[in-house]
């Protein structure tokens, strides 16, 4: 049922007329452009307005998880640790054997 508060249309449209207007609208606005990727912009706004509470790390704002970044960083850290070990190991030498001290008799015989 029509709402009594709504004013009557300026002219009556038969079903065919309605269909024709529908086609006009679809023809004029039916196909929109390729939608842009909104994820970066949305996350930037949320990060700004939440003062860094959400999407604080830059990595979570990327569309795909940066797997390569994680891998390269891990490999570089391992290589660095190996290099440090390689450098310091020759300096360490071999441990000197320590003889246990002889017991000392402090009481007079």
């Amino acid at each position, binding site marked *: 049922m029509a*709402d009594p508060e709504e004013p009557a249309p300026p002219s009556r449209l038969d079903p065919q007329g309605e269909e*024709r207007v529908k086609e006009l609208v679809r023809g004029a606005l039916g*196909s929109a452009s390729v939608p842009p990727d909104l*994820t970066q912009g*949305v996350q930037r706004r949320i990060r700004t307005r939440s003062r860094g509470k959400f999407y604080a790390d830059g990595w979570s704002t990327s569309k795909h998880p940066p797997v390569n970044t994680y891998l390269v960083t891990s490999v570089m850290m391992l290589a660095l640790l190996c290099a440090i070990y390689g450098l310091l190991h020759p300096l360490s030498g071999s441990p000197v054997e320590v003889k246990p001290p002889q017991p000392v008799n402090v009481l007079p015989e």
Partner: protein
Amino acid sequence: MRVGKGGTPKLEPSDPDDESERRFIERLRARDERAFLELVQLYQGRVYKLVFRMVGRRDEAEDLAQEVFVQVFKAVGNFRGDSRLGTWVYTIAINLCKNRLKYLGRRKTESQADFEPLKERLNAEEVQGFTSGDVERPDQMAEGREVERIVRLCLAEMDPDFREVLVLRDLEDLSYEELSEITGLPDGTVKSRLHRARAMLKSAVERKLGGKS
């Protein structure tokens, strides 16, 4: 909207009581950033198109579509799940569009004519009705484009309350029930407003076409 096994939303309509959708909404409520990213990726295309059709400007549409998702993020804690998530997102989008249109007073200018020209659009062959898609001769093509331009102009001049029902029903193919949820109007009012909007558009186009000939 339906949510798949891995919590990934799908597009087909679903029962609001759907367990997987409920879980997805819970993740959103818990401010799960990954869940929200999924939501944006799922709806960004539809929201952008809807907003673009309402405001008619590409730059404005991108800005407004981003704002829609920011508002969704802010308000998702209050989402009770009475309606489908998609309908709720549309409601926010439509309200923001109407507010922006009213704020800018853009209806009275011709700047809405930023709608893309036919040659830039996708699926031009799918354009229906009395448009350049139906005609072959150059003069008929030009005539079709002119009609499209006039229709866009008339839509731009239309009150946002009427424009929204045209866009939601004739372009987004939403049901009357969904229109009723989004606009907050009774079914009957939605139908009469849609009828009135079409009649107004028809009169406006005829008036402009009559003025040209």
